[in-house]
């Protein structure tokens, strides 16, 4: 019996090892954050697992040792059925979890403030660090501080992006730039990005695992999120909350680029032929699955479109899902698909 138990533990260990070595792979997005907020979230995870892992190991170790020592086949054991209460142990078993929870609560509050989607302190920290680094870099390269390197020191102006989810696409509006895209998010590196989010239909969850945690996207309501990307690259973003048949295809690529490329991209989008009015938006918002993840660009956006969508939804505008679609169990989705 004990042998079997041992074998099971071995198997558990092997699985654990497999998991830990697996963490070295790039596929573990949460383990390899590329932005300040995601990094804070991952650090909190590590801390929590370390503390709780300690408690779990103690408890599991106690159970394992007692099982081994007091198994019925062990002749050298003491058997004492009267040992059923002990004040010292009681104080310990209530006290230790209490202390652990107290300690973790402190970190919970701290990390909640650091990653608060509406005003993440982690981002301020990252900006301050960035500023210091930039300053040091500038001074090293150019002690006289001529104007060419000055922008590196200045805190970058936050980029604002308005996000609207439909069934089942993402519309990104850049209000200052006056442009919009579908299923493509392009942001400059090391720049705070502030999102306003709403949905035209049902609830979704905005999630870019390597950059920022989740925030609900709700119809008729506005939520906010903020992020700052530390490294250029292409990251996957998607909805994390089931929103119907096209949910699995509801991805968007997030391109983090340097400032020059961002400006160039904005110019390119401004040259697009399509424009985004509410009528055009309403056509996009009809149930559509973007199978090929095709990107659309809009050179101009109706002013206040984001608030208008919220207002319309609150006034009862719905984009219905056809009955034939939800009852369909045998045919490919009876829906507009972008291939």
């Amino acid at each position, binding site marked *: 019996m004990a042998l079997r138990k041992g074998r099971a533990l071995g198997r558990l260990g092997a699985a654990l090892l497999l998991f830990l070595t697996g963490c070295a792979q790039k596929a573990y997005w949460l383990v390899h954050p590329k932005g300040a907020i995601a990094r804070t979230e991952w650090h909190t995870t590590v801390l929590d697992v370390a503390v709780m892992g300690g408690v779990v190991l103690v408890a599991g170790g106690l159970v394992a040792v007692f099982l081994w020592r007091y198994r019925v086949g062990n002749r050298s054991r003491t058997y004492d059925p009267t040992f059923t209460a002990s004040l010292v142990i009681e104080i310990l078993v209530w006290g230790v979890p209490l202390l652990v929870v107290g300690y973790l609560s402190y970190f919970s509050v701290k990390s909640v403030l650091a990653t608060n989607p509406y005003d993440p302190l982690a981002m301020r920290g990252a900006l301050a660090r960035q500023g210091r680094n930039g300053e040091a870099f500038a001074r090293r390269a150019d002690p006289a501080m001529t104007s060419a390197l000055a922008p590196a020191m200045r805190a970058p102006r936050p980029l604002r992006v308005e996000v609207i989810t439909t069934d089942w696409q993402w519309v990104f509006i850049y209000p200052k730039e006056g442009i919009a895209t579908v299923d493509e998010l392009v942001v400059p590196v090391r720049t705070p990005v502030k999102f306003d989010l709403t949905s035209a239909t049902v609830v979704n969850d905005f999630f870019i695992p390597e950059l920022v945690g989740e925030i609900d996207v709700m119809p008729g309501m506005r939520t906010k999120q903020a992020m700052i990307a530390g490294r250029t690259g292409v990251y996957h973003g998607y909805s994390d909350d089931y929103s119907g048949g096209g949910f699995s295809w509801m991805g968007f690529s997030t391109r983090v680029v340097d400032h020059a490329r961002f400006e160039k991209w904005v110019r390119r989008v401004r040259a697009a032929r399509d424009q985004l009015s509410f009528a055009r938006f309403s056509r996009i918002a009809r149930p559509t699955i973007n199978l090929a993840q095709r990107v659309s660009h809009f050179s101009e956006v109706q002013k206040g479109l984001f608030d208008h969508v919220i207002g319309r939804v609150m006034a009862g505008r719905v984009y219905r899902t056809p009955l034939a679609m939800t009852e369909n169990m045998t045919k*490919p989705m009876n829906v507009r698909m972008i291939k």
Partner: protein
Amino acid sequence: MLVDYPGPWTFLLGRLDAREIPLQNPILLWTFVLVSVGAVAVIGAVTYYGSWGYLWREWLTSLDHKRIGVMYCLLGVAMMFRGFIDGVMMRTQQLMAVGPKSPGYMGALHGYLPPYHFGQIYSAHGTIMILFAITPILVGIMNIIVPLQIGARDMAYPYLNAMSFWLTAAATGLVMISLFVGDFSHAGWVGLSPLTELAYSPGVGVDYWSWAVQIGGVGTTLASINIIATIIKMRAPGMSWTRMPIFCWTALSASVVGLSSFPVLTAAVALLSLDRYAGTHFFTPGLGGNLMLYTDLFWIWGHPEVYYVVLPAFGILSEIIPTFSEKPLFGYVTMAAASIAIGGVSWSVWLHHFFTMGAGPGVNAFFSIASMLVGIPTGVKVFNWAFTLYRGRVRFDVPMLWALGALVLLLTGGLTGMMLAMPAINYTVHNSVFVVAHFHNMLNVVGFACFGAINYWFPKVFGFRLDERTGKLAFWFFSAGTVVLFGSMYALGFMGMPRRMDYIPFTSWRPLLMGEEAGILLFLVASYYFVKQLFVSIRDRAKNRVTASDAWGTSRSLEWLTHSPVPFYNFAVQPHINSRDEWAWRREHGLGHVRPDRYEDIHLPDNTPLPVMLGACAFALGFGLVWRMYWLAASGLVGIVVLVIARSFQDGPGHTVPGARIRQMEASYAAAPGEVGAARDPVGGVAAWQTASAPRPRAGDGRPARP
């Protein structure tokens, strides 16, 4: 009509027409064929053996808490298999549909399930496993064990008990029939709002879900009332609060939680139904509705529901571990306190199910700390179980293995639970498969405890032990499956994989999806051994028969004082309680086999068909409402009202079994312990109940018998 919904409507059939029977879908068609063949076989067998009368008299109309409990457990185990098959289908679809190049079969673009069919399957899986598998099994176990542990003849309200069961059965029937008539909800077991609204779910699927949940919710609320009343009012003389077994404490705490939270669910879903039927705007995005209101209400039930199932599981562990450690439970008082504390905290943590809704840091921090508080009493329990083992004599029988497995799972589930309780971590894993892995981890604690309880109390209920070898195989395969499946799933969580995906866009997730599939194959082997265990045990029941009242030799609480299987009257005379572990106390003082010197008349309720009929009416009401066949719904409702009124006029206060007959039966037990009637019946130990069954009420019964 008050609301617009697409599709035709006729007076007679409502929204139902022939096209709603999905014969064109090969999966459902073959399921339908299989189920039909199975049903014909069962009905044929019952008819062949001429057991209809027996079934009707002894089971379907029974008010005996043990039989109702057994029926609850059978229903739960059957539904667990259904939910398990859903799980296999989901995992297989996810493995088949990885990447844009994966092929599609049977109309799906990728894999073999089109999105809305997949949506129905995961919704059915969740709804079934939580509400119609785990909950009935636990209610069934509480039903059987609580009255025995407190020395009662039956539950406080035997009629209400049967009614609760038949309402649950009616709700289960609605979920099952949705397979073959129409479709089921695709909006998750939580009823994602506003996806459940008519605009986004115009079919009958959400209606099936909502009426099943409402009818089942009423059943479970009534069951909670019954257990609370039983524990408070029906304890045997001498059983003070501090002598009550921990299982009863957890059952009490769970039932208080159930009574206070299930009505919230019923109300929330009723409001949703108003949206769908009367055109109100409680949870719509626009026109004054607020979908977060639904989410709040749902989780105000949803989180306590977790404790509603976890608490009895903790109680089961607290019974099994002392028995197989040959020691009383360590820290009884704190165990009872911790049970109540867990129930208490459970009401104030619901918001951690939606930390990502954009609440301020103050709100999230409050609910974060409240959620972590649950860890304290739970930690206390784990340490107390550990110290119960300390200086014991630990045996590894099958129930103990399941209990220890549950303990290990509780540790890992606690670890990940503390992660989810931190909003900063929660933002990265909320709604991902990490959450799914966490709650399956925790519900597997409950599942392990249930399997432990089935193995542990089986001989008490049926008079013979379950086979040890197949039981251990089932345990090891199930444990291995749990590690492999949910280990992979946790890892996928760190890759950021969302839950409920029918198509997997990233091929990097494939290796771990294969891990999940491997785990579910291990589960498949485990369930084979579980069925084999039942089969082998029933076949070899003569060999496994328990001759003593105490099947394990080291049991502690009161239920082991009476015969195995338990006679319909539970205890020949009501026991007087002298100690916390009454049976252990009597055994240690050499009083284990002392027979009562005097037998008294026992008063018991009559069987009645009204609860079955009530269940049938509730089913008609639900089915009629789902398809908007208003005449059927109205008939069901009228039927319920008429039956309730009829019951209140029924002049049947029960019947009395004379003391002389009890003496006679007790003597026959003493002469051939455990053998009574065994040879006569094909269904194993159930036989002993049949021969020792309550006499059918005759005219004149119901009045106190003359001495």
